[in-house]
């Protein structure tokens, strides 16, 4: 009899402990009633964690923000977020989203609807491309936080020796000729990854084309614009780079970081890349891993044009902040987003982490101007930039481009048509990817 009671007591204790554990797992509020918001952030230098701490303090107990770090790769960030959201994971309140994944997240119903007044507030004074990236079907569904763009970086001494007039927009052809004449390379991202789509899209947009002509359409109905004059012009740039032998070592496995290292080490005197390369070069010079003279030789201008007189459409990147549809604290989360994307935080984040702000007014901040002497070039570039295809099927389109346009040395006149056909088949569910 005593044994049976002991057993029952044991089961009761175990159940109590288990229930307590489950409550602890599922709860996201502290005992004081202050909701804890979980913000999934992309890896950075700690800037988002600092903003989270500052906003928590400023909220006066309305909320506390905890940060969880996503993988480094944009595609891997999407994988993790989508899997969690598809499982209605209520532990996500806020998320840092790459603009290219905003349509898919919104279309799936994973984003909480942004109140009209906040839509207005979050888009006021923001560069056009960033507002477009944060919107889907004409409505702002996330808050623009920072808006990245690529610039053309060059070694001043090499550009001068090649006789390039850097005060005027340069073309890809001029770069190829200059690199060939000087025996150097052009740093581009030829890896089979998202960065390849960034490059191809920028060239096609700069040549007046579009990768997707009807982005709102469902997968099988999407019309691609790869097999076009603009697509052929983009393929020709790659063929020219290969033919001139100015791709540099390891072009087919180079991402943005590898390109920055190549430029830093002198393996390439020209490079297209995001502005983080400036902060990276500066700290390398300060730490003594690179000569100060090399860093002083860093020059920058806007993205290369496809032909003379035709304005370039540089790549547009960045991060938008979304509120999860499954968050149990949506009101507090919307308040937190307003704090995160404030002018003050965007300016501080640009200085600390090297990621350009989405708000134009931030570029007038003296601290920003001092930290980033190329602030005006970034602002100009952001105004001219073209977003990547905005579609709920971006992942398929991007992977399809990366698959068909890599290796760079294998690109021919037939590549635009072949990639158009292949991606079409993938979108219609007729091919594996």
């Amino acid at each position, binding site marked *: 009899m005593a044994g049976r009671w002991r057993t029952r007591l044991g089961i009761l204790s175990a159940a109590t402990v288990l229930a307590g554990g489950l409550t602890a797992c599922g709860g996201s509020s502290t005992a004081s009633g202050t909701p804890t918001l979980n913000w999934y952030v992309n890896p950075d230098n700690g800037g988002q964690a600092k903003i989270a701490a500052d906003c928590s303090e400023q909220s006066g107990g309305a909320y506390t923000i905890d940060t969880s770090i996503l993988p480094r790769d944009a595609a891997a960030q999407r994988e993790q977020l*989508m899997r969690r959201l598809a499982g209605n994971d209520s532990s996500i309140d806020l998320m840092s989203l790459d603009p290219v994944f905003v349509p898919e997240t919104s279309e799936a119903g994973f984003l909480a609807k942004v109140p009209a007044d906040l839509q207005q507030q979050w888009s006021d004074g923001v560069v056009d491309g960033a507002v477009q990236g944060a919107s889907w079907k004409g409505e702002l569904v996330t808050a623009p936080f920072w808006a990245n763009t690529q610039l053309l970086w060059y070694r001043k001494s090499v550009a001068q020796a090649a006789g390039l007039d850097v005060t005027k927009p340069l073309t890809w052809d001029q770069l190829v000729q200059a690199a060939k004449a000087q025996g150097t390379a052009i740093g581009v991202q030829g890896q089979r990854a998202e960065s390849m789509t960034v490059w191809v899209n920028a060239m096609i947009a700069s040549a007046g084309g579009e990768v997707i002509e009807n982005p709102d359409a469902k997968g099988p109905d999407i019309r691609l614009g790869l097999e076009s004059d603009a697509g052929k012009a983009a393929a020709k740039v790659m063929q020219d780079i290969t033919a001139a032998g100015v791709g540099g070592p*390891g072009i087919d496995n180079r991402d943005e970081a590898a390109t920055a290292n190549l430029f830093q080490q002198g393996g390439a005197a020209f490079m297209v890349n995001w502005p983080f390369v400036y902060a990276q070069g500066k700290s390398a010079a300060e730490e003594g891993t690179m000569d100060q003279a090399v860093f002083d030789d860093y020059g920058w201008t806007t993205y290369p044009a496809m032909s003379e007189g035709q304005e370039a459409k540089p790549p547009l990147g960045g991060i938008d902040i979304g509120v999860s549809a499954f968050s149990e604290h949506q009101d507090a989360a919307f308040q937190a987003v307003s704090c995160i994307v404030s002018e003050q935080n965007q300016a501080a984040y640009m200085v600390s982490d090297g990621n350009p702000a989405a708000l134009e007014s931030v570029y007038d901040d003296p601290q920003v101007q001092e930290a980033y002497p190329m602030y005006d070039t970034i602002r100009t570039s952001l105004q001219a930039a073209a977003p990547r295809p905005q579609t709920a099927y971006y992942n398929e389109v991007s*992977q399809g481009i990366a698959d068909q346009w890599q290796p760079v040395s294998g690109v021919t006149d037939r590549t635009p048509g072949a990639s158009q056909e292949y991606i079409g088949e993938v979108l219609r*569910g007729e091919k594996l990817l």
Partner: protein
Amino acid sequence: MSQVETRSAGDLSVSRPAKRRARGSDKARAEARLGWYLAGPAFVILVAVTGYPILQALYESLFSYRLTAPGDREFVGLKNYGVILTDSLWWKALGNTAMITVVTVAVELVIGFALAMVMHKVLGWLRPIVRTAILVPYAVITVVSAYAWQYAFGLTTGFMNVVLGLDDFDVFANKWSALAVICLSEIWKTTPFISLLLLAGLAQVPSDMTEAAKVDGATAWERLWKVTLPNMKASIMVALLFRALDAFRIFDNVYIMTKGAAGTETVSSLAYNQTISRLEIGLGSAVSVLLFVCVLAICFIAIKVFKVDLARARGEG
């Protein structure tokens, strides 16, 4: 062999009433019951843990279903299998996987046997040191090992291009060089596993047989071919089967080193790409089911064609 034949002949000769008597005895029934009590929970857990996902994958593979568009879910029957089996990408991935399996397992078997001999022969204080040294690569996590090999052959981070005089040749941008490095890392990592299994087999070779052969004047080569290897057959076949199944599911090395670029996709990386990366659950499940069928086929071939006897490998024969 003769032992097995005698036993099976003996089994056939048992008369029906005698069998019934044996089956019907209290002792046999009690033993059978005890067997079920002991193995039952494990059996139930096994079915729950492996059977459920397999059935779920089979079911999902009949749908066109994207995780981020749950409303568009549609029953398509066997269409996904048709798409996969008519796609050249599937056959390329299958070819790569088969090639990696054959090459790595063959090389590992030879090196693994040599290492097993070393571990078996070495005596005294050197024995634990040699055994530990040989087993170190197997203790390294596969992802860590894959990164180490990637860094070693990377153009900016590596030293192997200098050692091999490859200059600026990008190993991971070329299919065959990338597959070669993937195979090398796989061989380095898992040869100790095969050598451990073979060491167990070596320990089972009766020393009196070897000595008798020696006395009869057999050379070392003859002793190896005619005494040692035949006595180790069960261990060798089990090592082959385990490693072949393991190699066929290769994923980590490919994911870290190339992510399937330069034509290095394997069946597992293809399944990952459809299911996890594209979130196309239906198509991905169909690839996974086909991968499962391939694994079953390897087991079937090993057990039926090559007559791998798992019971004998445990020393029950």
